[in-house]
C-alpha cells in the first residue's frame, strides 16, 4: 500500500492536517469565525492572494523524510464547487499565511473536521452527525490497523477539504462509483496488480469495480435510509455474500441505489421503477445480459402467439371463402 498524501506535510509550506481521537476538540483553530454567508464577498479577494500561488497545479514538493510528493495545489474550480466553497481560506487557516515565505511557527497548524462541524448551529438536527462519523471512524480498519501506512490516517486522507462535496441524487451512478473508488485506489495500488489483488475470488472483478463502490461491501450494513458508515471494514470482515446484492431486496446495494432509484423515478416514472426494481423478474438479476435474454424470450413468445393467431385467422378466412 502506498500512503496517499493530501495537503499534508511538515515544512513551512505544508499544513499539517490532523484528525480524530488525538486532536478532536484540541485543534479548533479559528473555527469560531465561521460565518460563511456574511463573508462571501470578502472571501473572493482573500482567496485570490492565496490562490495566486496555490492554484498552480504543480505546486508541490518532495518530502525529504518520506520521499513522497506533497501536493499543495488547490484547484480554484473544485474549491468553489466544494462543500467549503463559500469559505475564505482564512476561515480555516491562520491569517499569518498571508506572508510569504510562510512563517515557520505555522507549520504545526492542525485542523480537524469534527470539532468545526459539531459547533455549527444545525449540528444537532443533522441526520448524520459528525459525532456519529467520529464514533464509526474510530472502529475503522484505517484507525485500528497497526500498519505503518495507516499511521497518520485522517479525514483528509480521503476527503480533500478543498474539493470534497457530497454526491447528489441525479448524478451519473457510474461517475459516482468511479470517483469514490479512485480515492481508495489511490492508496491501494495492490488492487491493480493481477497477482496480488485480494479480490481474486470475486467473479467479474472489473464489472464489480465499475458498478459498485468499495464502500458498499467494506462497511457494515447500515439502517435503511442511513448513509454509508465510516467504519471501514478489513477485508476479512467485509461482505462476501453475493445475495446481499444479487437478490430481490439487496441490502448493500440499496445504499448506492438511493441515488439511482430516485434518478430512475425522476426519469422514467413510477411504472418502470415498479417493473424493474421491485415486482418483476427481469432486472432482479441486475445482469443486463439475462435481462435482455428474458425480454427476447418474451418477445419471441409474443411473436409466436401473433403468428399462430394470424394463421388461425387466415384459415378462418379461407374456410369462409370455401363455404361461399
Amino acid at each position, binding site marked *: 500500500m502506498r500512503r496517499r498524501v493530501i495537503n499534508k506535510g511538515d515544512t513551512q*509550506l505544508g499544513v499539517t492536517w490532523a484528525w480524530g481521537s488525538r486532536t478532536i476538540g484540541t485543534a479548533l483553530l479559528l473555527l469560531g469565525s465561521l460565518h460563511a454567508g456574511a463573508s462571501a464577498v470578502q472571501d473572493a479577494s482573500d482567496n485570490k492572494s492565496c490562490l*495566486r*500561488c496555490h492554484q*498552480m*497545479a*504543480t*505546486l*508541490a*514538493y*518532495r518530502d*525529504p523524510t518520506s520521499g513522497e*510528493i506533497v501536493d*499543495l*495545489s488547490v484547484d480554484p474550480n473544485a474549491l468553489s464547487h466544494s462543500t467549503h466553497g463559500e469559505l475564505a481560506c482564512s476561515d480555516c487557516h491562520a491569517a499569518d499565511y498571508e506572508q*510569504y*515565505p510562510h512563517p515557520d511557527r505555522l507549520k504545526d497548524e492542525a485542523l480537524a473536521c469534527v470539532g468545526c462541524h459539531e459547533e455549527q448551529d444545525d449540528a444537532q438536527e443533522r441526520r448524520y452527525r459528525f459525532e456519529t462519523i467520529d464514533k464509526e471512524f474510530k472502529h475503522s480498519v484505517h484507525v485500528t490497523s497497526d500498519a505503518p501506512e495507516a499511521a497518520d490516517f485522517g479525514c483528509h486522507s480521503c476527503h480533500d477539504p478543498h474539493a470534497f462535496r457530497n454526491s447528489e441524487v441525479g448524478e451519473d451512478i457510474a461517475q459516482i462509483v468511479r470517483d469514490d473508488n479512485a480515492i481508495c485506489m489511490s492508496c491501494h495500488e495492490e488492487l491493480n496488480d493481477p497477482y496480488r489483488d485480494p479480490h481474486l475470488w470475486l467473479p467479474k472483478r472489473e464489472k464489480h469495480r465499475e458498478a459498485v463502490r468499495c464502500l458498499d461491501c467494506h462497511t457494515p450494513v447500515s439502517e435503511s435510509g442511513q448513509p454509508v458508515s465510516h467504519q471501514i471494514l478489513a477485508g476479512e470482515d467485509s461482505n462476501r455474500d453475493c445475495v446481499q446484492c444479487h437478490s430481490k431486496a439487496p441490502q448493500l446495494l440499496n445504499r448506492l441505489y438511493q441515488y439511482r432509484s430516485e434518478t430512475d423515478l425522476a426519469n422514467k416514472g413510477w411504472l418502470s421503477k415498479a417493473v424493474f426494481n421491485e415486482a418483476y423478474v427481469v432486472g432482479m438479476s441486475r445482469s443486463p445480459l439475462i435481462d435482455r435474454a428474458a425480454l427476447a424470450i418474451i418477445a419471441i413468445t409474443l411473436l409466436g402467439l401473433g403468428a399462430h393467431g394470424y394463421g388461425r385467422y387466415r384459415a378462418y378466412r379461407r374456410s369462409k371463402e370455401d363455404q361461399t
Partner: protein
Amino acid sequence: MTALQNLLSTPTRRRIFTAAMALLALTLAYKLLYPIVFDAYVGKTNAQLTYESSKPLTNAQFEALAEDITRDARYRKAAAIVEADQDAFARKVKIEMLMGTDSVVRDAEPSHIKYFRDAGIRRYEGPETCLTCHARIKVDHPDGTTSTVNTLDDIVNSVHFKFQSDSGGFSTYGYDGRQVNSGPHKIPVGKIDRACGIPGSFTWTGWAALVEAEPEHAANGETQLRSEGCGQCHIGGNYQPATEKMMPIGDVPSEAKEGIDCLICHSTDYDMNQRVVIRDEHGLRWDQDRSLRAALTVGPIRSENCLRCHQHNMGGDAYQHNAAAQATGYKHQRILHRGAKRGNPFAPQDDVHAAAGLQCTDCHQPEGHKIPRGRKGVDLVANDLPDKEVSCESCHSRAPHNSSEHKALLNGHIERLACETCHIAELQPDNVVLRDWVHPTWNPEEGIWEPTDVYRSGAPGKGFTFLWFNGNGTFLANALGNNPMGSDAYNPLMQQIARIDNPDVIAAVRAKAEELKERYPDIDVDRYVEMATNPLSQLPPELLAKREAMIQANLRAAMNDGDSRLYPFKLFNAMMYEDMTNQGPFGAMILPFDYTTYYETGDTKAAVVKALQDPIVKRMYQEPFKLYMMDEFMAYFGITDGWKTIYPVVDDKLVNVEPHWMRQMGTLMINHGIQRQGRDCSDCHSPNGIMDFAMLGYTPERVAELQDIDVVERVAASDAGPGTTSKE
C-alpha cells in the same frame, strides 16, 4: 516436350500456365527492370562500392593491431596492480610483464578482437561483416516484451537511413488545418524532400560536393578540394540519399545497403578524418572508415558516437568541444559551418546531464535501430517512434526542485513552464538567426563564398524566444500552442515569429546591410532591414488577409489542443530564391543551391540554376510527382490550388524567381545545454523581463500581476541571508 504439351492440353491448364508466366514476368520486371528504370527516371546512380580503408590484414598484422588497440588499457590495468611497488625501474619491468599476461589482455580487450580472431575475420567489409553474426537482433519494447528482427531491414527502414517517413503520428499540422499524413493519401516527409534555409539545399541536390577552395594562405593560385553536403552525417545512400524508399514500391538496391556505415555509430575508435567526399567513375560519394581498427573497437553506444554527427546540429561546428569538427579529413577536408543550427551543446562543459555522465540513449532509449525523439517536435523531421516519451519528467518527476527554500513555488511553475525555459540561460553566441544566401560573403581564410549570417545571437529575445507549445507544429516548423486562459490574442504567426522588434537586433541587421551594400550596391538598406525584420511586408495585401483568415480557421484548433506550456524556441529565418509561381500566404517554394557553384563562384543565381537542373528536381516539376506528392505537399504548405509545374528555368535563366525571406521565422525546439542553475525570478517577473506577457496572450491585469515584483522582492529578501543563493 510431351510434358509441355501435357501442361497445355486443356484450356484451364493453358490459362493457369499463362497466369503463372505473367506473374513470373512481373516479379522479374519488378526485381530487375524497375530499379534500372527508377534510377534512370530520377537520374541517380547505384554501383558496387569500394572503400580504401577496408584492407585485409595478415594474422601477424591483426595481432599487432590488437596489441596496439589494447596497449593503453593494458598499461593502466598493469600500472594499477603495481602502483605501490618499490623502485621505478622494477615497476616498469613488472608492468611490461603484466601487460602481456592473458588475464590482463582479456580484461582490456574489446570483445570483438576475440570474435574476429576466432572467426578468422581479417578485413572489415561493411554491413556484410557485421551481419555474419548479427543477421537478426533482439529488440526491447517498453512494455517489457522483446522481438527479433532482421537487422538490415531494421536499419534500412529507420529514419537514420531513410531520412523521411510517411507514417501518421506526426504532431505536425498543415496550414490547411489537416494533421500531416493522418489521411489516406500519405506522402513521404522528412529532410529528404524538404529544402531548408539552414543548409540551403535539398538532400538530392546537396548530397556530396567537392568544392575547389582558394584560401589566401595557400601558395600562389594553389587550390584545395573541400567536402560538403548532407551525406556527411546521413548514413543513407552513397551517391545520393535513399530515394527509392520514398516510392510506394521498390527497395534500395543491395549495393547501396552495402554502403551503410555501421561503424560511425557503433565503433568507439572511428576516424572522422575518413568521412570526406571522394570521386570515382560513377560520381561523388562519401568515404567512410572501414578499417579493422574501427571494427575491432565496436562497443556499447556512448554519447561520443552520436555526437560525431549530432554535435553539428547542437553545439555547432565551431563549438570548441565538437570532437568531429577537429577531424575534418586527411584530404578534401569538410567545410565547417560557422553559424550554429541550435547552439545548445551536449557536452560535459555545457550540459549538466553530459557532465553527470548520462549517455544519449539513457533518455532516447532505442528500440532496435529506431531511436525516439519524444512526442513533441515542431521541425517535421521524421520520427521513428512518435509515441515514445522522451521528457525531463520521466526522470525528474513533477516535483524536481529539492534544494531551494522556494522549491514548492519553483515546482508550481512547471504547470506553465517547460524545464528548458529556465534551465537554458543562453545559446552559443554563434547561433544563427538570420542567414542571407542571396548575398554571399567571401571567406578569405577558407577561400570560399559563404552565405552571410546577418544576425547571430544566443541571447533570450534575440536568438531565441518563448512560445506556448502543446507538442504540435506547423508544416514550416512553427510551434503551436495557446495561452491556457484561451483567447485569440496570442497569435505568433502574425506577431512574435513574423517580426523582430528588438532595437538591438534591428540595428545589427542595419549595420550588416550597410556592410553588404559595399559589395552589392543594389541593396536598398531600408528595404533590406524591413524585409528581414518584418517578413510579412513581403506579402501582397490579399495574401496577408488570407493568411490571417487561415490561421484563425485552420490552426486555432491545433493551437488550443492539449496542454500548452512555455518553451524556448530558437528562431531562424533565411533569404533564399523562391519560385513565386508556387507562392502562398506562408511562403513560396524555396529553391536549392548547388554547393560547388555557390562556394566557388558566389554566383547565387547560377548555383540555383545548376541545382534545378538536377534530374530529380526536374521530375518534381512534372505531372507524376505533382500527383504523387507535390499537390499534397502544397496543401499542407497553405497553397490551396495545387502545385504548379512551371519549371522556373528557361534558357539557363531563372523565371519568376525572387529572393525573399521566409514569411515567418522557423522555431526549433532546444532541449540540450541544460544548466543546473535556473533563471532568477526577476528575469521574467519585472517590467522589462525576457517574456513579453502581453504578446503571450495575457490580459492587461494579468500582465501587471505577472510583472509585479512584490513577491520577487519578498523572495529575494528571504534569500538575503549569508550563503543562501542556491535556487535549484
